[in-house]
């Protein structure tokens, strides 16, 4: 097996090993799990809110019903390690197909790996246990299919509609896949390529995305992309002075530099520019720009740096015979290393979630209490999962709470002019917040009782 053939598998195994050792900790994971559990228990799709006091019974959809069910099934079958394994599997799929995409663009395995690794490092910001992981896995898969079809294997396009059908039920990021398929179709049309095949794949794929009983809707997905909620960290624009933002900046500026020196195709422009806009809109979308930039950079980098290209001298057959065996040995060594990593990773699978960022000590007193609970936004999902007896005020599903509930929550916690009205209107009896919130000081002054507390949280009850 050559290094080109084995590279995707080796990279995928290594990334799988790195991904599974992280303990689950994402705040949104909990409400996704709770939603999946509800759907399996009721054999129905969750269409109205059942977790809160503020929007209880109101219709909503986050368009990810199947993703939530799969996530909960992984948990139900394998517990927290099962969830970590699913994460590793999906990240591994992403790594596998991204490496294939890179190898399609260049004959040099080294350059391909050199580009794939930082892109995967950047993608680690979304290695969280959410349906988002399906988009992370499916996007490179789709790219691989589309690039293969562009290279002449148009039969591969048959994969696009079923892929989009599954994707649309798994996660709202299907819109990205649909747009990518559309871009390839437009490029094929303008370049007089196999536009009929690409067009048919995009159109049938678009129709397939309508077959989602809990659909978020394409317009909602576009609206979300156009105006992300900035108060959520992952929805904020990238900060290039932070590690992940810096890696993204390297990709963005690297792409610009290579484009300035080597130019590119119409497809490169059609694909990279919208993804650059998307990445600059919200940092959670940075990996998709990097993924799309990988094949472009792999192909154009030697053109942009001709000295690099010239440095590659064609080896003589004799030299090849000398080199082949060591190269094979290195390849086998890497494969063995990746397998070992994966085995060690499985051995080090996390047995439970990392809940150090959550108010674990408040769980017991909350179960004993009654009345409406006001709490940190980030803790909503955790409370849904750990204290189902106490409906939450707000949680990471966000959209059902916009704009009214979110504004009220903010007015109360940040001590806006109407904070007393909000507490009275919702008959808030218990408050669970970080100790430095303005509301905490105000309630203490008003005589609210401290039920429990620790360094990162405080639980107050109405006197």
């Amino acid at each position, binding site marked *: 097996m050559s290094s080109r053939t084995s590279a995707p598998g080796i990279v995928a195994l290594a990334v799988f090993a790195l991904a599974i050792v992280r303990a689950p900790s994402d705040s949104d994971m909990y409400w996704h799990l709770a939603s999946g559990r509800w759907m399996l228990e009721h054999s129905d799709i969750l269409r109205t809110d059942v977790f809160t006091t503020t929007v209880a019974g109101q219709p909503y959809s986050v368009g990810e019903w199947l993703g939530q069910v799969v996530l909960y099934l992984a948990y139900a079958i394998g517990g927290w390690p099962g969830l970590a394994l699913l994460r590793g599997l999906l990240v591994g799929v992403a790594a596998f197909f991204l490496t294939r995409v890179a190898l399609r663009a260049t004959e040099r395995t080294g350059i391909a790996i050199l580009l794939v690794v930082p892109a995967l490092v950047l993608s680690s910001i979304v290695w969280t246990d959410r349906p988002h992981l399906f988009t992370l896995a499916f996007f490179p898969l789709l790219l691989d299919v589309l690039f293969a079809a562009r290279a002449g294997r148009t039969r591969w396009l048959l994969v696009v509609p079923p892929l989009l059908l599954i994707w649309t039920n798994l996660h709202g990021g299907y819109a990205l896949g649909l747009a990518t398929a559309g871009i390839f179709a437009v490029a094929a049309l303008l370049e007089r390529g196999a536009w009929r095949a690409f067009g048919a794949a995009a159109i049938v794929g678009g129709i397939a995305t309508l077959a989602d009983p809990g659909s978020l809707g394409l317009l909602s997905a576009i609206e979300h992309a156009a105006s992300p909620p900035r108060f959520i960290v992952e929805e904020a624009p990238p900060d290039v002075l932070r590690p992940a933002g810096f890696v993204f900046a390297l990709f*963005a500026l690297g792409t610009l530099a290579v484009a300035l020196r080597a130019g590119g195709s119409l497809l490169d422009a059609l694909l990279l520019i919208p993804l650059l806009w998307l990445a600059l809109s919200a940092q959670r979308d940075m990996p998709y720009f990097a993924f799309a930039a990988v094949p472009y950079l792999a192909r154009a980098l030697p053109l942009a740096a001709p000295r690099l290209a010239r440095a590659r001298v064609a080896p003589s057959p004799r030299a090849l015979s000398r080199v082949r065996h060591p190269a094979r040995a290195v390849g086998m060594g890497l494969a063995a290393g990746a397998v070992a990593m994966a085995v060690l990773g499985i051995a080090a699978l996390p047995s439970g979630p990392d809940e150090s960022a959550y108010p674990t000590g408040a769980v017991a007193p909350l179960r004993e209490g009654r009345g409406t609970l006001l709490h940190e936004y980030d803790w909503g999902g955790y409370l849904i999962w750990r204290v189902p007896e106490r409906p939450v005020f707000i949680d990471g599903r966000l959209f059902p709470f916009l704009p009214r509930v979110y504004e009220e929550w903010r007015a109360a916690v940040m001590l806006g002019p109407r904070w007393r009205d909000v507490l009275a209107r919702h008959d808030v009896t218990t408050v669970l917040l970080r100790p430095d919130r303005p509301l905490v000081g105000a309630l203490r002054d008003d005589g609210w009782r401290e039920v429990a507390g620790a360094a990162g949280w405080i639980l107050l009850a109405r006197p």
Partner: protein
Amino acid sequence: MRVAPLALVLGTAFGALVSLQPVSDSDLFWHVATGARTLGGDLPRTDRFSWTIAGAPVLTDQWLGDALFALARALGDWRGVLALRVVAVAALVAIVVDSAVRARPGRPVVAAAAALPAIALSRFAWTDRPELLGLVCFAVLVRLLRGGDRELLLTLPLLALWAQLHGSYALGLGLVLASCAARALAEQRERWRFVPIAAAAVSATLIGPSGLASWTSSGGHFLAPPRYISEEGVPDPSTLPGLLFVAALALVLATALRSPRRATLRDLALLLPVAFVALTAARHTPLFAIAAVPYLAERWPDPLARWRAASDGHDRATEEGEVSGRATGHDRATEEGAVSGRATETLSTARTPSLGRDGVPRAAGALGRAAAVGACGVVLCVSVALASGRVDESGYPRGALAALPAGPGLLNQYDWGGYLIEFAPRAPVFIDGRLFPFVPAVLEDYRAIVGARPGWEAVAERRGVRAILVRPADPIAVRAPDRGWRVAYADAVAVLLVR
């Protein structure tokens, strides 16, 4: 330095337009107050405006910029400040458009279109601060860096001046060094000459009262921008400036991808560092759009090319020659610095000495240019004269000024610090837009009190805060009355609370 007529016209037009914008920037006032002291022969090296850091060292890295604004104020009151802004904006737009015209001579539509993103994006920096003067310096630098050795040498006095005007000179220094490196890489002969130029560029930025401290100030600001100040936030495409920046970036990327002609190392040395700096903070985004103007102008297709070809067969041949040149040997020529200007210079030497490039006698040409510049000056003077010469105080606590207690003890909204320095000198401020002297201790205490965080009363007590002047929606404006603070003044803009 000759300026293209189109650049003069557009510079004048935008200069006149910006006169409609009233004087209101919150930082202007402390710049003017600082500059006034400098003009009085007392360069402020320690704080004299606040009571929280009174006597502590403050930066002097913008002393000349401050002094220019103070001089404008002294000469013409706030209308003088407005006039300085009008002149700076006119100069900025003229230089930007001129850079585009020079990059694409004879194609005014392309040049104007290439300059448009820069004009649109820089509009958000057309404020009454030394930053605007820094932007003008940057536009001059971009133009100089596209020239030959003579222009590279001219960057030295520019850097020396810029380092006294605004901290953005640090980017200018970085670009000059990068340009020296790129030229040294691209050229085969006498590369050593870039070493003394680079050394002189570094030295030029150290001339001034701040010395090495101006480096640390600019470096610290760049590496750790205070994100809670909106202009220091990251570029956000959901806002208009952010959208314009992304559009400019996308235009450059699209042009680079589709242009048949390679960019030079010099282009890379200019565009890549500026792109990174622009990505760090929203306030830096206009820099990228300005830097990209000559590149876009040079590469963009001419929408009127077909019309020209139909009307003039010669033009068509030239256009085709241009295109084929781009795809083949032109790269190398450009790489070696043989910019179009040189070709024009060669042509002009063949002409009669008394005739200019356009065939018009030189004396008549000079007279015509002087008349054009004079006419533009008249338009700008009239626009300044017609504009409102007053400060727009609608966003400031004007009504509360009379109720402010004299002497130390006032905690003010961060954004109003400069305003109070100018309009309430009896009440020294808690904090103002100079920011860095207040970091971290004063700023942290300010945020604790204004945010009404638990323990805010102890902080106020420790600091000796007697009065609080904030916006009605600030948490402290809601909380302090509950804790016994008296509302001494309140309107839609401000609340004054007294212990």
